[in-house]
């Protein structure tokens, strides 16, 4: 028994080492978490404002620099012994005064332009048409996201973790809450961020107009693993989205293959059920991500790891090897059990 335990640990360690070398989720590409690539009206209105502001600020900056450099360049040279010119102390200097006043006037006008542009963008953002919206209630935890898709019919609500799917072209209303500390939900390609504050409920509205996978990340320091609290938003055409929703609403199918069945047993008999829920299996833990359709996700551990068997096995064995400080304890399982469990989890599409 002890020898098997020891062997299990070695295998786990080797797996972890191998995986760590290649750790990291599948690279979605450099533009999947990018405020300069807008995929919806919220982000693109902000981008428009950004470009206007950048233009004005660059012009002003250039003007100041030119005046400054020119002043330096044309001024005669002096030394410490050059007598100081104190005429300014007794006489009004008319020309510089006029220039400064005009410059100040121009600056004030431009500031006012920025103010108007900002307020008007604020209003446009608030006027997103919300008819036929998808309602998602997002709750942030240290260091993962849970999301409940609401519906008037209670039976049609379902819960996912860390990866959202939204339909292209339909607005999404997210109600934001936090289970523990302040987090911030930010998916730059789609919208600005909003904080999730314990004791308060916030709202974020957005719409994706282009299909794609957009990465978001927690943007308020929330403790040890703030750096690895990401999430994915899959924006897809209506038909695909509805198919996904339908699948999410179903409980997990009882597996057919023997190994997977055995894995289910391992799951139900270990401490996994204290934190995790798998619909239809009887496991209803609420402290960790819902695993009912785990295999349908592209990443694990809030975007930290790619979702494949090797990573999953290593994660289960020792989560703190990848996310030191994480709340999930390690589970050193005999290798057969581990493989069975991973196989079972792989059936949860």
């Amino acid at each position, binding site marked *: 028994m002890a020898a098997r335990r020891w062997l299990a640990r070695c295998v786990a360690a080797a797996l972890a080492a191998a995986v760590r070398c290649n750790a990291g989720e599948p690279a979605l590409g450099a533009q999947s978490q990018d405020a300069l690539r807008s995929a919806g009206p919220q982000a693109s209105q902000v981008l428009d404002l950004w470009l206007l502001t950048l233009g004005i600020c660059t012009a002003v900056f250039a003007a100041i620099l030119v005046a400054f450099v020119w*002043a330096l360049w044309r001024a005669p040279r002096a030394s410490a012994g050059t007598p100081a010119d*104190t005429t300014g102390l007794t006489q009004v200097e008319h020309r510089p005064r006029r220039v*400064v006043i005009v410059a100040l006037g121009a600056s*004030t006008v431009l500031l006012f332009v920025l*103010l108007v542009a900002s307020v008007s963008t604020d209003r446009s953002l608030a006027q997103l048409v919300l008819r036929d919206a998808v309602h998602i209630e997002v709750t942030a935890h240290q260091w993962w996201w849970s999301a409940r898709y609401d519906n008037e019919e209670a039976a049609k609500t379902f819960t996912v973790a860390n990866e959202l799917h939204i339909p292209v072209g339909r607005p999404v209303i997210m109600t934001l809450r936090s289970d523990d500390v302040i987090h911030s939900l930010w998916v730059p390609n789609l919208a600005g961020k909003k904080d999730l*504050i314990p004791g308060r409920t916030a709202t974020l509205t957005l719409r994706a107009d282009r299909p794609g996978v957009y990465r978001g990340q927690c943007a308020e320091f929330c403790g040890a693993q703030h750096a690895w609290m990401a999430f994915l938003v899959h924006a897809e055409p209506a038909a695909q989205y509805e198919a996904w929703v339908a699948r999410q609403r179903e409980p997990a199918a009882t597996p057919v293959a023997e190994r997977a069945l055995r894995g289910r047993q391992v799951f139900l008999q270990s401490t996994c059920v204290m934190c995790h829920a798998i619909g239809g299996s009887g496991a209803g833990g609420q402290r960790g991500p819902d695993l009912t359709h785990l295999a349908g996700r592209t990443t694990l551990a809030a975007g930290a790891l790619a979702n494949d068997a090797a990573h999953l096995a290593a994660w289960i064995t020792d989560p703190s090897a990848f996310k030191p400080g994480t709340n999930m304890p390690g589970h050193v399982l005999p290798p057969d059990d581990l493989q069975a469990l991973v196989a079972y989890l792989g059936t949860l599409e």
Partner: protein
Amino acid sequence: MNTTSEVDLTARNQVPPSEADRQALEATWRDPAGLVGWFSAINHKTIGVRFIVTAFGFFVAGGLLAAVMRLQLARPQNTLVGPDLYNQLFTMHGTTMMFLFAVPVMQAMATYLVPLMVGARSIAFPRMNAFAYWLYLFGGLMLYIAFALNIGPDAGWFTYVPLAGPDFSPGKRVDFWAQLITFTEFSGLLEAVIVITTVFKLRAVGMTLNRIPLFVWAMLVTAFMVMFAMPAVMLTSTALILDRLVGTHFFNPAEGGDALLWQHLFWFFGHPEVYFIFLPGLGFMSAIIPTFVRRPIFGYSAMVLALIATAFLSFGLWVHHMFATNLPELGKGFFTAMSLMIAIPSAVQIFCWIATLWTGRIHLKTPLLFVLAFFFILVLGGMTGLMLAMVPLDLQVHDTYFVVAHLHYVLIGGAVFPLLGAIYYWYPKITGRLMNETMGRWNFWLFFIGFNTAFFPMHLLGMKGMPRRVYTYPAGMGWDTMNLVATVGAVTIAVSMLLFVINVWRSLRHGQVAGDNPWGAGTLEWATSSPPPAANFDALPVVHGREPLWEAAPEPTQVRGMATGQREVLVTTVVDARPDHRSVFPDSSIWPFISAVATTVLFVGSIFTPWAVVWASVPVAIALTVWFWPRRGETEREMLLEKSP
């Protein structure tokens, strides 16, 4: 203090001051010798130098912390530093730079320079000044000892609750942060009262309010801001300690508290705080530019009004740190307007300086170089500040590297560059020798290039999605190269700072001897020797204009009849600086130091138990009582000079 019978306790100075006057003043005002004497020193110049050196020590420490952070972030998924240490690193870096360097160094410069610039023998309340210094030093040491023991704070320099509360930050880490606030804010508040009193009541005869140097105005306005803003952070950090230590519920939503209460109170302080750092920087600009452009600043009144306007407006901006919360949108719009509006007084300053440069004659030396960098770096930072003021833009770049870029551009461009210029400028006054000009230029260019290399890419990093306060990031996000470039910039900055330190050190012995006024400047501190005598001036000056050394001075020019055998100071009226009365100031004393030690025991003890507040206040009370209790013979000596109103 002179207690020997040779000293004439009633002697008074002549005009022009005689050799006997000079020697008597030196003996009266200098610091005592020996080890006990070192701890008893209260001369504002001695304390000022210690204060400046200590602040720069913390600057180097904070910089080294940042260097480690940059090395960790140079490559994606780097394993140099794990999350626990990294979170301590960025917390310590921010806390050090904001609370232990940027604000104190400005107060330190004021401590040294303001009495000289206003023509006084001493700063007001010299013992309290010393006490404030020791308290600041002990607070900083406490923090670093905690860090060295791996119990340094790790919830960020602004320590948001509930993360920093008892539930999610167990142990003593955050308590050390909260108590550091108590130390530094107590010290800062005392300094503010000292500066205001010095500027209002100890100015040279004839130095009316509209004749004081712009640097002194900047420190005066800053001191007022400090008095009204620091209480907010004192109150909120106390509430945090209470929540953590004795179970209060200020920030606990489950029992009626509110997480945003912390943010409101903290930022009500935090926004003015950056102006505590920026305004003195503006003061340095206005002190250095005239000297190297051979004319006074254009638009003195506008400059003063701009300082005051900035100070007032800075209290109305704080919610711009909270735009991502669920506060009402209309309210946020108000703060956008205010945050944009504060650009106007800053613009006044910038345009007036450019007008000064335009109509002056340039003497390009290292102090001016550092000051000129402001126009590039601070102005760029100001532009990104305007962007951050606009709610929709802020919602994309808030809490990303864009903000990191902005804050470093404004703080380093607006305060650190002018500060370094100020060191190069006043070093000859403080030490009697000039810093090396060639090394100064290398220092400057390496810093300028290194700074922009380190921080400019961060604007783009933020726009491209990289949040701040992350100990690592995934590969393939498009962030790798920019992070590497930023790290190279950080290393360059470190090299430039090394040059600075070497220059400071070497010039102490090998720098060119400076003389009274090597730069040909116009303000009063250059009217005395370099370094100044213990009593600052042999005879107190009488002032008739804004640039006393540049303008012809009618008579009277000097004050006669001040005591030379006791520490007598001339108190003048607030607005017109007419002579009011003579006041005898205290002798050197070790009790400020001892009181600071006792207060440290009180503050550190109360991290561990609330009862420390009770039992540790006994030694504090004793120390303060002995401090204020008159020494034997002290009253008799003072009464030799007594004259009733």
